[in-house]
């Protein structure tokens, strides 16, 4: 099970909402707790899935609250907030979740199922992990991810492209698949050609990264039995390039590989979580 004291911090980590101290504390915990690592990566997948959604209805009281902020002039971002709330309130109902998002959703389902399996597996987190479990998160207790620098990041990416070592599946990190206790009904076969490598990269200097309008990354396709990479669009705004700045020393995690390279999860300088191409690390613009 997830350690109770870290439950909400795991979710806040995904949102880039932890303080530096909280992040350090949770980081240390994740090094030794496979269950929480699993949970973290499942939460990341949940987050990505949600970001594929477009605006549903917003509760009236939210709009009211935003209007109150306008009246009181209490928030510098009031105007943009109000614009957003208008959009929330007046645009049609539920989300349009594209095919790509569905691929991600499938990954989430898999991750969640594995996570549940891990829970059912009891206290031995490491033994409960299967290849699928490494999708959901994984087992840092067994092997902390290697840390490489921005200088050898390209080399690291290249290594990821040559799967000479058994590696976990897409969509969320971590090392060596352990023997699963999950039944074969929920333990998927890994795609033979798709073996993203889990590792951590520490950028040596700040990098500003221009992302293409659409970010693709590989995800597990289709539920539990078939794994194969599927392009998944995760950019909330597909029409505009986005620019992220990654601070020096930022720790990123490789989570997937696509035809464009190896993707990593990173928290950017403004606190926003994002997916970036490993090859973009160290490229300043």
């Amino acid at each position, binding site marked *: 099970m997830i350690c109770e004291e870290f439950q909400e911090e795991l979710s806040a980590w995904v*949102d880039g909402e932890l303080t530096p101290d909280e992040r350090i504390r949770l980081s240390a915990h994740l090094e030794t707790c496979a269950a929480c690592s699993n949970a973290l990566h499942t939460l990341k997948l949940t987050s990505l899935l949600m970001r594929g959604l477009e605006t549903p209805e917003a509760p009236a009281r939210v709009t009211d609250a935003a209007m109150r902020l306008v009246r009181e002039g209490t928030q510098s971002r009031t105007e943009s907030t109000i614009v957003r709330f208008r959009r929330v309130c007046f645009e049609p109902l539920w989300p349009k979740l594209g*095919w790509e998002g569905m691929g991600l959703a499938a990954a989430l389902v898999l991750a969640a199922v594995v996570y549940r399996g891990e829970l059912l597996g009891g206290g031995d987190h490491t033994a409960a992990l299967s290849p699928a479990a490494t999708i959901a998160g994984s087992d840092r207790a067994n092997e902390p991810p290697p840390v490489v620098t921005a200088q050898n990041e390209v080399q690291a990416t290249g290594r990821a492209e040559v799967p000479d070592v058994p590696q976990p599946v897409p969509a969320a990190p971590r090392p060596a698949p352990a023997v699963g206790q999950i039944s074969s009904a929920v333990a998927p076969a890994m795609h033979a050609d798709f073996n993203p490598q889990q590792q951590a990269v520490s950028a040596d200097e700040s990098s500003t990264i221009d992302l293409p309008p659409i970010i693709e990354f590989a995800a597990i396709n289709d539920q539990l039995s078939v794994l194969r990479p599927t392009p998944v669009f995760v950019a*909330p705004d597909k029409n505009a390039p986005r620019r992220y700045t990654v601070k020096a020393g930022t720790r990123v995690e490789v989570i997937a590989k696509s035809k464009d390279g190896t993707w990593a999860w990173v928290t950017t300088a403004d606190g926003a979580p994002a997916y970036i191409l490993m090859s973009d690390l160290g490229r300043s613009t």
Partner: protein
Amino acid sequence: MTEFASESPSPEEASASAGMRAILENALGELDPVFREAILLREVEGLSYEEIAQVTGVSVNTVKTRIYRARMKLQQRLVGFR
């Protein structure tokens, strides 16, 4: 080399996607309104916890709790989808 799926979903993918979408929509619809509000403001609108706290009139800690619980509820629902 890795093969990538085409841009267009296969019929199987389409079927799975439609089912998944329905599950997700239902799961969101069944969330407690305050959880739904928090998760949508975060994930769809991109507001920070502080901003969500301000516009919903609760503390940042409450926002953190609501978002976490919303995610857990959604995960529980999606687990059942096959």
